[in-house]
């Protein structure tokens, strides 16, 4: 249904009502800890995005790709019921979420993703009702899992799904930097353009994955530490 490229643009658009403006991708606690302090080394924002693309965002993108893959495989099994060659897997989407959960050790970070996932799910079930085949109507489900299902039902390619996750994460951090640091918006857009190669490298790495145990598990301990500080911070601009 529809044009996949337009769907990808909708998903990457900060104006889509899924609460994207409440997120800084962990930038706010990093700024509090000294990133870009005194307006110096503002380009550290771009380096921070690059580190995320290599670690946590890479995992997220792979989870979205695998969810899309599993959902499509599941819809394939419905065409041929009783086919014994199809592996018995009642909830392939839940399987991917379990793989994601084992790769995200922090309950705080998982909670943030699931809250974001719930917002996306509530919107998606209205806009693309097909998601109900794979997901409950409401519930806290990891955002990349919801996004992967949206990708499956709207005909996004694995590359488009991975690129959407990666771009969204980069843009989340960079646009938050405009509110947290004295950043020139043109500099911010230049950083984002400068990250295109990193995003495409991620897309090339994760798009071909078809097995849950191939999902990378790159961790970022400092991001976890910052997330835990932020969760108990009383004065904050962004939810996470």
């Amino acid at each position, binding site marked *: 249904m529809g044009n996949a490229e337009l769907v990808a643009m909708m998903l990457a658009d900060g104006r889509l009502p899924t609460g994207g403006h409440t997120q800084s991708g962990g930038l706010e606690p*990093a700024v509090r*800890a000294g*990133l870009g302090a005194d307006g110096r080394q503002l380009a*550290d924002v771009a*380096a*921070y995005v*690059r*580190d*995320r693309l*290599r*670690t*946590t965002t890479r995992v997220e993108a792979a989870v979205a790709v695998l969810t899309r893959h599993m959902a499509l495989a599941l819809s394939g099994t419905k065409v041929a019921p009783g086919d014994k060659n199809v592996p018995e897997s009642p909830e392939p989407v839940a399987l991917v979420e*379990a*793989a994601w*959960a*084992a*790769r*995200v*050790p*922090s*309950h*705080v970070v*998982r909670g943030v993703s699931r809250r974001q996932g719930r917002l996306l799910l509530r919107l998606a079930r209205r806009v693309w009702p097909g998601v109900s085949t794979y997901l409950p109507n409401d519930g806290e489900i990891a955002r990349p899992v919801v996004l992967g299902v949206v990708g499956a039902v709207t005909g996004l390619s694995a590359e488009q799904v991975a690129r959407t996750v990666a771009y969204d994460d980069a843009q989340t951090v960079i646009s938050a930097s405009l509110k947290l640091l004295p950043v020139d918006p043109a500099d911010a857009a230049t950083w984002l353009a400068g990250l295109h190669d990193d995003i495409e490298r991620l897309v090339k790495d994760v798009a071909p994955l078809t097995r849950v145990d191939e999902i*990378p*598990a*790159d*961790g*970022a*301990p*400092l*991001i*976890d*530490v910052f997330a*835990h500080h932020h*969760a*108990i911070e009383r004065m904050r601009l962004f939810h996470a």
Partner: protein
Amino acid sequence: MSTRIEVVADPVRDRCLLTTDHLSPRQLPGAAGVVRVALVAAGALLLAGDDVRIEIAVSGAVRLEIVETAGTVAYGMRGGSARWDIDIRLTDGASLQWYAEPFVVAADADVTRTTTVRLAAGCTAHLRESLVLGRQGETGGVLRTATRAWLGEDLLLAEDLDLSPDTRTGWAVLGTNRCLDTVTTLGFRLPDDPQTLQLEGPGSIARRLVHEQHQSTLNHPASASYAR
């Protein structure tokens, strides 16, 4: 070859089979139901080309406590590399406590370190891993870690860390910290604490990123400082 510690619970006397390789396990006196084993380096460690493999297998209602007598330094490897692989299997209600001493990666070292833990339901593991990047005043070399833990059939934890000098120093992995001190529990949780990560399944990670290893508050298991 592997360094191997195999413990089987026995109503008369717990059986303990120790195999020396790069490390030499030595049994220490322990209370009833507890087998204590010291791990002592059997030669110079850790040098280019070293392939250290440590296998721990504990079965039955017994608790294995592993004690290290000294930390380990991975020395400069002049283009070579080394491995340090730990494989832990706990079955039939066994438990393991292993508070490892610091693992120091000197300048120009290149080490891959993996930890694989397989627990049957009802088993518990309590592990400390204290990684230090560089001795005093030097920039540590390359360290890559891979941790995988299963509880029964379920993957409980998967975490790979690239602690190479280029990737660790940003605002995501270690920042300017030199030490990554981690206590991981599997099969049970540490008490809730704002700093403690609670895994999806039964398990926790308490972690300190510090400049000097002694600054970490995870040092002493007896003081239970990690459970504050």
